């Protein structure tokens, strides 16, 4: 494909995604609200993702601690291990890894579900039933991912710190109280709040991209697979871009 065609396709896709997101704000947030479906999606997207987020968070905390220890021992600052792990998890690793795992599970699931509904005319059937499918399917899912990812991140961080505590105690003995006191004394408002706020944007991106890819799916079952796949890839890339912008912004605001 010619470079010009690639650039044109990229701009076309970006413009369509931008319009799709604009539609969320212009029509998706207006009454009639689909509260029941929103709650249902919060349950599916949030509650059912918890075991995966908990497992990966726990392993992440444990492994991070075990990998960091030798370097800190070399510099003679092993006692700072809880502080380093705590800051790394709360500020960066927790939100980003949770968002990436979430994108892998949820963006693909939404992309495949809506893509399948699109190619089997279920979205058209919804429309002729007098239901606005954008509100019912897209707005509820995008809101649910926006609301649930921050909750999952807080829980994932907590479980990750628990994994870190166990990691610390594999080679030495530190009390639960001392470990968490050290972490919470070292963490500041500027560590936790920007990290928490950016997860809303991660969640919105995952939901919006998953819905966009599914809702605009075509070319039959092959298109559904492609939608699910590209939803994960695109939302993962966008998570990193948002993270980069968030770091720059918090730096500009002097929160770092």
């Amino acid at each position, binding site marked *: 494909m010619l470079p010009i065609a690639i650039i044109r396709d990229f701009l076309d896709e970006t413009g369509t995604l931008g319009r799709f997101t604009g539609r969320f704000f212009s029509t998706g947030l207006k009454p009639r609200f689909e509260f029941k479906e929103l709650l249902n999606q919060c349950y599916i997207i949030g509650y059912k993702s918890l075991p995966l987020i908990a497992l990966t968070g726990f392993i992440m905390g444990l492994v991070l601690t075990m990998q960091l220890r030798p370097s800190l021992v070399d510099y003679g600052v092993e006692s700072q291990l809880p502080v380093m792990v705590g800051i790394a998890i709360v500020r960066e690793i927790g939100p980003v890894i949770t968002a990436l795992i979430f994108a892998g599970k949820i963006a693909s699931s939404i992309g495949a579900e809506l893509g399948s509904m699109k190619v089997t*005319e*279920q979205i*058209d*059937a919804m429309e*002729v039933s*007098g*239901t606005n499918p954008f509100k019912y399917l897209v707005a509820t899912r995008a809101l649910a991912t926006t609301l649930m990812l921050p909750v999952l991140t807080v829980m994932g961080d907590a479980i990750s710190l628990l994994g870190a505590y166990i990691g610390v105690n594999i080679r030495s003995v530190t009390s639960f109280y001392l470990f968490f006191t050290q972490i919470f004394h070292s963490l500041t408002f500027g560590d936790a709040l920007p990290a928490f706020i950016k997860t809303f944007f991660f969640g919105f991106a995952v939901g919006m991209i998953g819905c966009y890819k599914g809702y605009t799916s075509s070319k039959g079952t092959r298109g559904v697979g492609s939608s699910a796949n590209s939803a994960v890839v695109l939302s993962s890339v966008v998570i990193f871009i948002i993270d980069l912008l968030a770091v720059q912004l918090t730096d500009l605001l002097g929160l770092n």
Partner: protein
Amino acid sequence: MKKSTDTVSNSPAIVIEKLCKSFGDHVVLKDFSLTVQKEENVVVLGKSGSGKSVLIKCIIGLLNPDSGNIWVFGENVPELAHDALDQIRARIGFLFQGNALYDSMTVRENLEFPLRRHWINHSQKQVDALVMEALENVGLAYTVNLMPEELSGGMLKRVALARTMILKPEVILYDEPTTGLDPVTAREIDNLILKLQKKYHTSSIIITHDMNCVKNTADRVALLLDGHCYAQGTYADFEQSADPNIHQFFE
């Protein structure tokens, strides 16, 4: 805009005037006109890809025509705002070619879905009664708690028909109702269409190229050819026609 004839009780259910629809350079409908009287079954016959499905998707407002008018219950569908279109849609049933049942919902939930959107003041008892009535109409009351994946092709079509009928629409649009079914099941669907038309006094447009379906269900047949209504008449008129464009459907 409202058409003056709306107040006349025996005015047509659907009037299509000079409908045009293109996709890029591909002209699908070109000055297509058709009138469907109340309680009449009109079969639109045409080859695959001739624009039959596009026609009924324009009628229900899923596609916007490039030009032309579609009068349903005296309202011009292409000019309707979203809320007004939803009100019209509550009076029109649409049976999709692929059934389009929600595969994450049970049969009961599939049938309840349109009810919950339009008849929000109904109690659960009334909703249950309507669901069971619709399923009994198609002889599938026992499938109420099953998932669509547990049903056969013919059963799926009948459940889809029950969902189409649940709001007691005055007009029904059937998109190839017998495609992919064996002749016996196809005949059952044809009989159901006639039975429900008689029971609820509906007007219908049936899109098909299945000549058995045409023979069994049509009060009048319209041939869609090259984007316009090439010929209209009864099934017998078509059967006796010497026109090669019509005769080819009987070969």
